[in-house]
């Protein structure tokens, strides 16, 4: 196998996925914030709320389109760059992706057009329903994508079929209610809400600093701070839930995040700070918080969390067990129905470790001929690089806690201090606009880099998952993506800034001429006088 192709495919996936996730969190959160604003408009009938809906809706649109465009890359990349992966797990992994299209993306994409073009053609309540459907659609989208991703982290409800050389689904409900997927979904969606809240807060703070659009900005801050506070709390609590599910399904990832080399007596301590050294398998200058890790990872004081060295030894055992499965597999595939029952039984006993035997394919063509040294190397490969995980995780957590403080402070000012915001706080709100994106990217980095060397944990190694491509093909597409994405990024940021500077526009819907025409249209459409036409 060509390791350059593996590394280039990984690089391409990392770049396109992280780029895609620049737009997704804002879409998730802003769709809900806009829907909340429009709900207030429909309930109170005050035009300022319609103006807010349209203004934030415009920014939502600029962002949304790039989320859609870069999302297509994600779906197609599995087949293009990861064809063995697609074959090997498509039976399980494909289903949530397809259901995402059926249940969520269709909804979101069909109604987003009406959100922008429907103001004149729909009654107020109808338009509100459309906006909520867009928000619900994008959030459901995240649900199915995270069910798919959760399965890569914790592959439940499936088993290997030697006849088809792939994983096949045995229980859709286990895939659906995979606790890793559920915890990740709520954590990710809440992170999206925080991102949007920080964005709305920051932009509004910038208006207040310049004393522009004060009415709009203050109300927006009120929405952003309350919505953001709830979401920021939920991110941290549900992040803890993720840690708990990682504690029983992805022990190596958890140990790497903690740079926990040796198994500690329960309850393990949490390393607040330190400099992990992978060669010496030691963390220098470590500051520990006693008990914390044991509580987060196991919710008990007596359960041990295994350290990296112990997990490595377990991996070596599983490689040896996987080799028995691999050997039996070749016979089973050859003899099919006529397979000797003893071989079949041997295969079934060890088939859960088959993926570990594949780790050896990196070193030699026939894993059965592996030497002890090669098996040791393959076992060592199961340890991800520790320091990037250690640090990315800590940056994410620190930012997560700081969002709670930020949102709580603004919520307090908005609720109890009559919206009197000190200038330093407004400046701070502007400066921190990019930070939720950093936290979100760090989170994905921890989840996916921490899964290495697997694409599907314990089932399929990353190195085996790639397509049969040449380095030149990958370089062409990689260069293409980088060029494209850079240009689009510049264009997007430029337009965002232009529309933020411009601020809310004078709405034609506020003119008499428009109102008259709107009423006329609605009447001629269904023959009735509309019950809800903006006539302020």
């Amino acid at each position, binding site marked *: 196998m060509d390791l350059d192709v593996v590394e280039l495919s990984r690089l391409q996936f990392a770049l396109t996925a992280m780029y895609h996730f620049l737009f997704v969190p804002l879409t998730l959160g802003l769709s809900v914030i806009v829907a909340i604003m429009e709900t207030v408009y429909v309930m109170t009938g005050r035009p300022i709320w319609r103006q807010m809906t349209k203004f934030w809706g415009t920014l939502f649109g600029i962002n949304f*389109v*790039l989320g*859609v*465009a870069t*999302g*297509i890359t994600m*779906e*197609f990349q*599995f*087949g*293009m*760059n990861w*064809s063995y992966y*697609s*074959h090997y797990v*498509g*039976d*399980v992994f*494909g*289903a949530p*992706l*397809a*259901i*995402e*299209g*059926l*249940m969520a*993306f*269709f909804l979101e994409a*069909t*109604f*987003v*057009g*009406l959100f*922008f*073009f*429907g*103001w*004149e053609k729909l009654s107020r309540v109808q338009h509100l329903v459309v906006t909520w459907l867009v928000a619900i659609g994008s959030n459901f989208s995240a649900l199915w994508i995270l069910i798919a991703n959760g399965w890569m982290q914790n592959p439940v409800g499936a088993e290997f079929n030697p*006849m*088809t*050389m*792939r994983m*096949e*689904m045995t229980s859709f409900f286990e895939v659906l209610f995979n606790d890793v997927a559920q915890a990740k979904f709520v954590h990710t969606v809440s992170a999206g809400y925080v991102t949007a809240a920080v964005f709305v807060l920051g932009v509004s703070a910038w208006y207040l600093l310049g004393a522009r659009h004060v009415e709009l900005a203050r109300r927006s801050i009120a929405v952003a701070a309350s919505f953001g506070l709830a979401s920021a709390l939920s991110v941290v609590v549900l992040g803890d839930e993720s840690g708990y599910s990682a504690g029983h399904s992805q022990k190596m990832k958890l140990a790497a995040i903690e740079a926990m080399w040796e198994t500690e007596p329960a309850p393990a301590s949490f390393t607040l700070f330190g400099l992990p050294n992978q060669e010496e398998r030691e963390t220098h200058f470590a500051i520990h918080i006693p008990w914390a890790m044991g509580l987060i990872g196991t919710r008990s004081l007596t359960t041990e969390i295994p350290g990296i060295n112990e997990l490595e030894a377990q991996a070596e055992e599983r490689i040896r067990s996987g080799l028995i499965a691999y050997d039996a597999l070749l016979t089973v*595939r050859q003899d099919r129905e006529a397979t000797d029952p003893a071989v079949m039984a041997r295969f079934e006993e060890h088939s859960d470790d088959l993926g570990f035997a594949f780790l050896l394919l990196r070193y030699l063509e026939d894993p059965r001929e592996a030497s002890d040294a090669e098996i040791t190397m393959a076992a060592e490969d199961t340890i991800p690089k520790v320091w990037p995980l250690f640090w990315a995780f800590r940056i994410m957590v620190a930012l997560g806690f700081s969002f709670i403080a930020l949102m709580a402070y603004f919520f307090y000012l908005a609720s109890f201090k009559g919206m009197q915001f000190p200038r330093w706080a407004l400046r701070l709100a502007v400066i921190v606009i990019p930070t939720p994106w950093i936290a979100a990217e760090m989170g994905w980095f921890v989840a996916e880099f921490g899964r290495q060397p697997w694409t599907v944990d314990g089932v399929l190694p990353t190195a085996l998952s790639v397509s*049969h491509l*040449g380095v*030149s*093909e990958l370089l062409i*597409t990689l260069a*293409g993506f980088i060029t*494209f994405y850079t240009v*689009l990024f510049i*264009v997007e940021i430029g*337009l965002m800034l*232009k*529309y933020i500077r411009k601020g809310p526009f004078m*709405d*034609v819907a506020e003119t008499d001429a428009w109102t008259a025409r709107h009423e006329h249209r609605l009447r001629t459409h269904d023959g009735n006088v509309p019950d809800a036409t903006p006539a302020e």
Partner: protein
Amino acid sequence: MTLHDLIAYDLLRVVWWLLIGFLLIGFALTDGFDMGVGTLLPFVARTDIERRMVINTVGPVWEGNQVWFILGGGAIFAAWPPLYAVSFSGFYLAMFAILAALIVRPVAFKYRSKRESTRWRTTWDWALFAGGAVPALIFGVAVGNVLQGVPFYLTDDLYAMYDGSFHAKFLGLLNPFALLTGLVSLSMLITHGAAWLGVKSEGVIVARARRIAVVSGLVTMAGFALAGLWLAVGIEGYSFAQTPITDGPSNPLQSEVIRGGSWLVAYTERPWIIIAPALGFFGTAQAIRGLRRQSELGTFFWSKLAILGMISTVGLTMFPFILPSSKDPNSSLTVWDASSSHLTLFIMLVATLIFMPIILAYTAWVYKVLWGKVTEADVTDAPQSY
């Protein structure tokens, strides 16, 4: 749980063959006119306001339409993982070109009218042209290559391998027959786009579109006929050496396939399938007639039927093959040996039966709300328009 045993595996496989066909046709019928309109844009609209009128005929719906394609890709992944794995990596650079077009197109719709500069807008107009024309062409080229067989083979581990350097692979796709099918696909969607403009636009735009569509309609018919003739005399078909097992495990290597004979044998085995190409011809002819008589709705209706007929022709002619291998015919993917497991096909069917009617209902509602021609005032009045 054995609920899925209620529907036999081989029946489910045929049902999924129909459903994937349904999704691809759904894509061609809806996003097809978006691509046609994009291709026509620089030619039917000269001034900025004309162009905005054209863009806004598809502005509110292209996003939903494009989901047919995304869902088609997702459904192929879920229902035919081997096809998804082999074709997307095998047509690598072609897929990248489609991706590039599909990335640029949404952005062009959304961003084009957000700045005043003429250069900015003209650039995005050509991006819309490419975003329509390039995928329309490549989809047809892909079909042409599938009919001829693709040079891949599967190892015993079912790892998909491809023959030749990547230059040969990419340029090999652009063979004469595939270019012909590419041309049919492009001209078919141009005609469809013009038919849509007839329904949604007015005046000089429609007049220009009509003139182009008469020509593209004739090209479609001639190209379709020529491709049929070519299939009859110049292209080898594929068939099973023995009667295949239709409900066995999905392993393409377990059946023997021979290359030789003609695809058109299908028309003696299943004579009724002649309906599909007949509908392709008749529909296109009627659409051209509709253009001449300026009957917009009729043109659009017949154009849809023509697309239905032409795409079905490919599927029905090849059945049960979905991706034949020219390098190693035994690796060919067919309906019987390239599907998902029984359980996955069943679950996906249940999901489709629940959600597809809902999708069709709300899509219909959205089209109803947006019914009517896009006028100049619509574009200039609404600050949200493209």
